[in-house]
C-alpha cells in the first residue's frame, strides 16, 4: 500500500462539489488538472515506436566536485555514443528532491535509471519505486544499504583495496626516508560507504608498519572543505611534527594545501620538510600537484570504466541478462614514478587538458 492516491476520480469529484466559492473551485480545478490525468491524456513514452530509441534517466546527487562532473559527462557521453537518449537531473544534495526526481523519471517512463544516491539509506524509496515500475536501476559510484526486496546494481571503485595500495606506496616512501613519520588521515562522511572503505583501506595499509608510520590525527571532514581545513589546521597545531597526510578525496586538497602553507610545511617531493601526501580520486588538482612535484600518490578511480560499466549494466538488465549486484572498478595508483605512463587514463588529467 505505497503511494496510494485516487487520481482517476479527480474530475468526478470536481463535478460533484458545490461551488461554495471561486477559490474552492479553483483549488479543485487545479487538483483535477494535476491529479485527474487518469481521465485525460496519458503520459507519453519515448518518442519513437517500434524499434524505439531507449531513454535513460541520469540523476546525480551533486555536481559540486570535479569527480562528479567528470562522471556525469562520461555517462552522458557513453549513452550518446550508443545512440541512447538521456534525461538528467541533479538533486543538489537534497535526498527529498532526489526521490522526487527519480519519480519524475518513472513518470516519463524512462527505460532505465543510472543515479548517484545521496547516501546508502535515503535512496531506498527511490529504488523501490523504480523496482515497482519495472525500471532497472544502476547506482554509480555509491552503493545502497542492503535492504530486503530492493534490487539494484552498483558500480563502485574498490575503495578499500585502492586506498590500501595508495597508502602502502606512501608507507614505502616513508620507509625509504629512513625515519619514523607521524600521520594524519582526513576521512569523509562516515555515512557514505565510500568514505568508510577508504578509511578502512588506510588503516589496513598502516597496520603492521607502526615502526614507520604512527597515526596521531584523524580529521572528520564530512566531505566539507571548510571542516577539512579547520581540522587539518588544528591537527597540525596539536602535532607540528606530522609529516604524512592521506586525504580520502582529492577534492579536499585545496583545504589541506592551504593549511600546510600556513604552517610552512608545503614542500616538493624530495626536498627537506616535505610532507608525504596522498589522496583518492585522481582529480585535476591532484594531477597538477603531481606534475608540480608536491603530491606523492593518489588512487585513481577509473571514471570512464565506471561509466561504460553503468551503461552496459542497464542494457544487460533490459536484455534480461544476469548482472552481479556489485561491479568493482579496480582503479590504479598514480605517482611520480608512473605519471608519464598513466596520465592519459587519469580523468583529472583529461579535465585539465580540456
Amino acid at each position: 500500500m505505497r503511494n496510494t492516491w485516487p487520481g482517476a476520480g479527480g474530475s468526478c469529484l470536481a463535478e460533484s462539489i458545490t461551488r461554495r466559492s471561486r477559490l474552492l473551485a479553483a483549488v479543485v480545478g487545479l487538483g483535477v488538472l494535476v491529479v485527474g490525468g487518469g481521465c485525460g491524456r496519458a503520459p507519453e513514452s519515448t518518442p519513437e515506436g517500434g524499434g524505439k530509441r531507449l531513454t535513460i534517466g541520469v540523476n546525480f546527487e551533486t555536481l559540486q566536485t570535479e569527480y562528479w562532473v567528470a562522471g556525469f559527462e562520461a555517462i552522458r557521453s557513453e549513452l550518446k555514443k550508443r545512440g541512447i537518449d538521456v534525461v538528467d537531473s541533479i538533486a543538489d544534495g537534497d535526498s527529498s528532491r532526489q526521490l522526487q526526481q527519480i519519480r519524475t523519471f518513472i513518470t516519463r517512463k524512462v527505460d532505465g535509471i543510472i543515479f548517484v544516491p545521496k547516501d546508502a539509506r535515503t535512496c531506498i524509496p527511490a529504488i523501490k519505486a523504480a523496482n515497482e515500475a519495472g525500471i532497472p536501476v544502476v547506482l554509480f559510484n555509491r552503493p545502497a544499504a542492503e535492504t530486503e526486496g530492493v534490487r539494484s546494481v552498483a558500480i563502485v571503485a574498490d575503495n578499500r583495496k585502492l586506498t590500501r595500495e595508495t597508502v602502502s606506496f606512501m608507507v614505502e616512501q616513508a620507509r625509504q626516508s629512513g625515519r619514523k613519520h607521524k600521520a594524519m588521515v582526513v576521512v569523509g562522511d562516515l555515512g557514505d560507504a565510500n568514505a568508510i572503505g577508504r578509511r578502512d583501506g588506510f588503516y589496513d595499509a598502516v597496520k603492521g608498519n607502526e615502526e614507520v608510520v604512527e597515526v596521531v590525527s584523524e580529521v572528520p571532514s564530512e566531505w566539507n572543505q571548510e571542516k577539512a581545513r579547520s581540522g587539518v589546521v588544528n591537527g597540525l597545531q596539536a602535532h607540528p611534527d606530522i609529516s604524512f597526510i592521506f586525504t580520502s578525496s582529492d577534492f579536499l586538497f585545496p583545504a589541506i594545501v592551504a593549511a600546510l602553507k600556513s604552517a610552512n610545511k608545503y614542500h616538493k617531493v624530495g626536498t627537506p620538510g616535505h610532507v608525504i601526501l596522498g589522496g583518492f580520486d585522481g582529480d585535476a588538482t591532484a594531477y597538477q600537484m603531481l606534475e608540480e612535484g608536491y603530491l606523492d600518490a593518489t588512487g585513481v578511480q577509473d571514471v570512464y570504466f565506471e561509466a561504460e560499466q553503468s551503461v552496459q549494466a542497464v542494457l544487460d538488465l533490459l536484455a534480461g541478462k544476469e548482472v552481479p549486484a556489485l561491479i568493482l572498478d579496480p582503479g590504479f595508483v598514480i605517482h611520480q614514478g608512473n605519471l608519464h605512463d598513466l596520465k592519459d587514463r587519469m580523468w583529472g588529467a583529461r579535465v585539465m587538458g580540456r
Partner: protein
Amino acid sequence: MAIGMRVDGWLPGWLKRGVLSDHLILWLSVAYVLGMAPWATGFVSVSNAQTILAYLLPVLVVSVGLTLVLIIGGIDLSVTSIIALASVLGAKVMSGEDGWMAGNALAVPVGVLVMLAVGLGLGAVNGFTVAVCRIPAFIATLTTMMFVSGFAIWVTLSRKIGGLPAGFVMLGQNLWVATVMAVAVTWLAHGFLSRTLYGRWFYAVGQNARAALVSGVPVGRVTFWTYVASGGFAGLSAILFTAGLETGNPEMARDNLLDVVGAVVIGGTSLYGGRGRVLGTVFGVLFLALVDNSLNLVGLTFYTITMVKGGVILGAALLDTARTRILARTG
C-alpha cells in the same frame, strides 16, 4: 510606485482583477500548469501528482509554522535543524536495527511522540529566548540551529538510521495518510488565524508590538506560543520527511530553509510581519513545487533549471510587488 502605476494603467480588467486577487499565486499556478502541460511530458498525470504531493507535503507543514512566525514579525532559522534532530531521535527510538525500542509494539507511537516533543521543546526554547530573554529572533534561532545541527550529527556520528518500522513508514508513503495529516494541521492553522481573536493578536503583534501591548494583547505569550507552534510543525514535518525517505538523517531538510522561506514569502507573507495567510503559503509551496517538477520533466540541465527557477520566482515576486502597490494606491 512606478511598477504599480504602469501595471494599473494598461492591464485589461479581468487581468487586473487577477493581479489584485488574494489568490494571485494560485492563478499563476493554474496558468503555469496550463502553459507547461504541452512541453513537460507527463506533467498532467496521476503519477506526477503523487510525486508532487509526496515532495510538497512535508515542506508545506514546516512552511505553515514559519508563516505564523513571520506574521508576528519574527523569524525561525532553526526549523530545518529541528527537523533533522527530530528525525534522528525518532529513528533512534524506532529503528529495527539498533533502535532503543526495537521490536517493541509501542516503538512507533513513542517514536512519533518523541519527534513531536523535540519540535515543541525546541520551539519552547526559541520562544523563551525571544519572548522572555528578549534576544532578537534572528540570533536566538540561529544559535538554536547551530547547536541542534551539531547535536544531530554528534548523536549519530553522521550515520543515517534505517530499519524503520512499516507502521511508521506508512505515515509518509501512504499519500492518503500524509495528505490528511498535512491538510488537517494546515486547515487548523488557517482557521485559527482567520477566524479567532487569538489569530488577530498575531497580526497585531506583527504590525506593531508596542501598540498591541497597549491594546491589551499579551505580546509575550503570543510570541512564545508562536515559536512553540513553529517547532511543533517542524516536528510533524520531520515525521513526513523521515517516513518518506525511510531514514533518520542528521542532514534532513538541511537545504530546504530557503525553499521554505521563499514559498512563504511568495505566498504573500511579509518578512516585516503583520501580513500573511496560511492559504497563501499553501499556494506558494504549490507554485514552487510545480516549477521544480515541471522543469525536471522538460529535461533542462541542472544549471538551466536553477536559472529558470530563479527567474520564475523573481517574476512572481515582481507581480506580487505590483499588486501590493496597486492596492496601496487604490486604498
